[in-house]
């Protein structure tokens, strides 16, 4: 049985830790609310962007544009979006694991890392890091996504890299986030995207109706039949304008989703940490009471024993 004072000290320290985890949980919860709103508000925008543009790319016969060019082999640029800080459960690690898998299986991989966690990890592994961004904003702006997109386009056009994909975390709810790997360049066409309808199902109600009708049209005419789109003023000029926008929009949404996920993961992690601390305190309190009781019993036995001896 542990010494009473030791137990008391443990209880004190666990209580202190609990205060910290509780505070972190509250902070995360407050930020989550904001980040979640932003991410969810941006979803119709993201879905429309993907739906409209991929639809256009899919249904247009090989539109010649540098950003649609599929080149064999070459370097693969992976954008890895993690957080700057830990204490958020498996959030960072799930993303890093997926990225590491790609780094290990493919020959030429470069990374663009966002968030200190991913940077530190891949630095230790000596992976080629093309660019790094740390100290991200809690609520990333459109301008930041714009810069990232510009950089990616620059690398792709210079043929430094022949494929660009992005690993981010999709926010389902505060307790459930899923890691996604999305190919950015060359822009993927619809037929290869199997999980699309599933993501649309989770849409907020107002967008759901559109999503359904659109899914139908895509099924009907998407596979083989090409729609003759008019491009105003010309396909080249339109693609020059909308392809970068597609990238920016997609990256922007991914940033928002990832941030919301980070706060969600942190809130959940800190919530269970607080709960664990409570359990631990209960446990220690029980131990303390037992120790105290044992001490009292011992003293009584001693007194009784002493009294007996005097008789």
């Amino acid at each position, binding site marked *: 049985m542990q010494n009473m004072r030791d137990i008391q000290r443990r209880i004190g320290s666990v209580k202190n830790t609990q205060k910290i985890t509780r505070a972190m949980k509250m902070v995360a919860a407050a930020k989550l609310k904001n980040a979640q709103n932003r991410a969810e508000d941006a979803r119709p925008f993201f879905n429309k962007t993907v739906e409209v543009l991929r*639809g256009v790319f899919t249904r247009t016969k090989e539109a010649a544009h540098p950003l649609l060019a599929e080149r064999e082999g070459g370097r693969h640029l992976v954008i890895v979006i993690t957080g700057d800080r830990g204490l958020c459960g498996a959030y960072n690690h799930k993303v890093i694991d997926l990225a590491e898998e790609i780094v290990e299986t493919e020959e030429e991989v470069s990374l663009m890392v966002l968030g200190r966690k991913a940077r530190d990890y891949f630095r230790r592994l000596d992976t080629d890091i093309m660019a790094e961004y740390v100290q991200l904003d809690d609520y990333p702006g459109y301008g930041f996504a714009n810069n990232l997109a510009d950089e990616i386009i620059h690398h792709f056009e210079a043929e430094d890299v022949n494929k660009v994909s992005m690993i981010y975390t999709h926010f389902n709810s505060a307790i459930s986030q899923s890691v996604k790997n999305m190919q950015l360049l060359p822009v993927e066409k619809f037929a290869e995207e199997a999980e699309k309808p599933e993501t649309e199902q989770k849409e907020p109600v107002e967008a759901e109706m559109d999503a359904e009708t659109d899914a139908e*049209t895509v099924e009907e005419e998407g596979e083989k039949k090409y729609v003759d789109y008019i491009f*105003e003023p010309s396909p080249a000029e339109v693609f020059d304008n909308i392809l970068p926008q597609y990238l920016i929009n997609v990256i922007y949404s991914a940033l928002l989703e990832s941030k919301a996920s980070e706060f969600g993961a942190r809130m959940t992690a800190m919530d269970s940490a607080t709960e664990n601390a409570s359990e631990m305190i209960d446990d220690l309190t029980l131990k303390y009471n037992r120790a105290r009781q044992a001490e009292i019993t011992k003293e009584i036995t001693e007194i009784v024993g002493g009294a007996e001896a005097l008789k």
Partner: protein
Amino acid sequence: MAAAPKIQLDVVTPQKLAYSEQVDLIEGPAIDGLIGILPDHAPLVTAMQIGVVRVVKDGEEIQIAISEGFMEVQPDRINLVVRTAELPEEIDIERAEAAKERAEEKLEKGHDKVDFAKAEAAYDRALARLKAAGHQDHGYDRL
């Protein structure tokens, strides 16, 4: 009004679904100039620039200030995906005025190319907002 054909217009921004209605026609600034869309239009894709989209719905006209984006047209619907879109009642006129003045100042100084382009875009956005909000006493010839 079952007789007159309508077209579904969805204006989507990162912040929200800004506008979603059955409309009679729209007219907006594409990269190569003003473009008008009526129901049953042939499929079309174009990029949009900063400016004012004029929407006619049941004979009434609504003006929406937009910034860069793109538009996809199908015979029965228009998807207008833009960075920002504001209906007249959402526009903060004072803020737009202030932004316009700021941009004007920068344009006058204008040394750096990038700064100049940014100021120009800011100026256009402010003008578009003012125009959509119905403030006529400013130089809007630009848009």
